[in-house]
């Protein structure tokens, strides 16, 4: 059987009317489950405090008289400056870090599936040791230029003397596991050290600090998800290209990446969303200038309890751009891999 248009391939099985009905029922039920809390946010954003407190009201104009007071407060009134600034910061930080993470992570994932790395354990330990000493020195106040030069010297000496004696080496899967293991420590355990690190670098309260942090935090996820996609892409194509004289970079850029578009899009959405919504690291790394929106949301629970109406407005205005991106990118996920077509 030949598929005429590779972009319109779907399950080849046609559904019977009954199956169709059941499928729709399930889909609609889950849609309801997903939508209802969002609907509730929407109506809450139009309620006065008293409408929230007096019990559940569902329909504006019928149950209660809607008010724009919360929208006014967030977008025009007292909080407008904060909202605008934090919104801008989020818009700068999240897409930048997500794109960088996608770029570096995809490259690393490709490397891990197509090359064999055998880093020697001895070298790694020497390198780590030096790095720790350098970072500790900078943290304790040594000038960073001196620290790095001393570190390089120390490293060369260590490599010449100690590292050559250890011959054990790691495998690709070890590298991958090491990467993902970086996500295992809960943020509370790393936030103060990261704060100190950026403080010594003088990067606190800059967009750069947040971008670097989210980049590092999200890289492992990109690497792992993309690794699986690359493993499912057949090698023949790349080998053909290599015979034709294409460089590795070219193979990666113009053959492998286009094939991995669904995975790339899905992964990009995640890292974008993670960076868009991150709270704890943003709280510590930002001051007045680079605060992001999740802080504004969390801040609506203050001494007088959660301000549901303000919170609802903020959550809604936060998800609108992400939904727009998701809608725009959805068709790329749906496009599907060309694997089958190529194999055939």
């Amino acid at each position, binding site marked *: 059987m030949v598929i005429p248009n590779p972009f319109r391939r779907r*399950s*080849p099985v046609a*559904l019977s009317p009954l199956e169709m009905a059941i*499928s729709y029922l399930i*889909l609609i039920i*889950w*849609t309801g489950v*997903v939508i209802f*809390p*969002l609907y*509730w946010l929407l109506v809450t954003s139009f309620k006065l405090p008293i409408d*929230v407190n007096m019990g*559940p009201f569902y329909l504006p104009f019928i149950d209660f008289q809607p008010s724009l007071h919360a929208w006014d407060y967030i977008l025009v009134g007292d909080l407008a400056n904060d909202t605008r600034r934090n919104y801008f910061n989020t818009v700068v930080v999240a897409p930048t870090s997500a794109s960088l993470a996608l770029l*570096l992570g995809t*490259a*690393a994932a490709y*490397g891990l*599936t*197509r*090359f*064999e790395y055998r880093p020697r354990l001895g070298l790694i330990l020497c390198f780590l040791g030096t*790095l*720790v000493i350098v970072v500790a020195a900078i943290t304790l106040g040594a000038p960073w230029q001196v620290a790095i030069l001393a570190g390089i010297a120390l490293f060369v000496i260590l490599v010449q003397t100690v590292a050559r004696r250890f011959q054990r080496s790691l495998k*690709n899967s070890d*590298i991958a596991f090491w990467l*993902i293991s970086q*996500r*295992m*420590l*809960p943020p*509370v*355990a790393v936030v103060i*050290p990261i704060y100190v*690190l950026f403080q010594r670098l003088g990067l606190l309260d800059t967009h750069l600090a947040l971008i*670097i942090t989210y*980049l*590092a935090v999200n890289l492992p996820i990109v690497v*792992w*998800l993309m*690794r699986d996609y690359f493993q499912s892409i057949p*090698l023949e194509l*790349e*080998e053909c290209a290599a015979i034709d*004289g294409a*460089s*590795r970079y070219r193979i*990666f850029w113009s053959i492998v990446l286009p094939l991995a578009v669904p*995975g790339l899009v*899905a992964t990009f*959405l*995640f890292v974008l969303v993670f960076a868009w*919504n991150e*709270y704890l690291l943003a709280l510590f790394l930002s001051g007045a200038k680079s605060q992001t929106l999740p802080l504004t949301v969390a801040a609506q629970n203050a001494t007088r309890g959660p301000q549901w109406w303000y*919170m609802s407005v903020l*959550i809604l205005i936060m*998800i609108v751009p992400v*939904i727009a991106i*998701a809608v725009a990118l959805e068709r790329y*996920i749906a496009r599907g*891999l060309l694997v089958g077509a190529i194999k055939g």
Partner: protein
Amino acid sequence: MTTERVSRSALTEVGIGTEAPTSVVLRHVGTRVERMAGNVFILPAVLVVLFLSIFPLFLSLSLSLSRLKFVKGGFEIKFVGLANYHKLLFGSEQNHFLGVLGSPSLLGWLFFLGVMAFLIWRLVRYIRAGSSSVVSLVGRVLTVVLLGSIAWLLAHTLSPEGRPGTVVVTLLYVFIGIAVQYALGLLLAMLTTQRLPARRFFRVVFLLPMMITPVGIAYTFRMMTDTDKGPFQPIWQALGLGLYSWVNDPWGARTAVIISDIWQWTPFMYIVLLAALEGQSVELMEAALVDGANRWQVFWHITLPQILPVSTTLILIRMIEAFKIVDLPNVLTNGGPGTATESMTLHAFIAWRTLDLGGSAAIAYMLLFLVTFLSMSYVNILRRRVVEV
């Protein structure tokens, strides 16, 4: 991993062999850049991660072995050895961290014995196979001991007289949550790959929960779970539960947390599985259908093996993330009633917030230990097998 080796050798030979003979210098540069390709691909990522992970890792390890104290002129970090860990496992925090042990019910015993039987059977089979090195044998014995103790802990703290500590509560969140999320995500992904009208609408809608900031989701679900002025109040009243509040009941509150977690994270499973299903080979399926296989057989023998590698990754990532659950219990119940909904990260978070940095880091490291151990066992037992088949 055989495929990788094949690929590398094939490409190496081909790549170098076909270098165009232009000029000696250019060629030299070209091959050098080519030869470095492997490093160029991976090093940026490794370096960025290294840059931000090594220092925090070591600093929080050293914090977990010490105590922070404010003295005149600043603070002092005093080394206290394993005192913070001792406190969690045997000292004043034991009831909180591990839970209160009670004698297990029959079901508990069955569960524990079942797990032990399985583990020991695996170990025996492994030793019988004869290809064991000392290191991997030690590793496997350790696995049996640790998984066995987790089963023992579950059986004892979930008994009628026992009370689960933050470790057990976290494990419950992780395993129940992931199982339901995976099943739901797969079901929805399969349905939306069918030829259904309005498919695209569902696809976008199902992604929505993932896009809300976790703190926001937690507050949204605090409204949802409120049975006094939340949207389900009339239903609650109609069921005659007006004077009962589920968030005041330990299991009710845990259920509320798990439901919210499922709502939040099913989209993650959904979108990755959707991409995986979209990427599967249709020819195989069609061939099988032509051969008269029914739909269940197609799913079991063709679809599932194709999405298994992605699934195992997905579950691993989700597992690592799920162990860090903190926003939901923190906002929904603040870990209450009592300590019923407190996860390990929340436990660490409360300690951290009150400047008990040593105690907090110790909990975080216990969590790191548990997650590393569980995910390594997971990778060794399941993923490697799935991916290499």
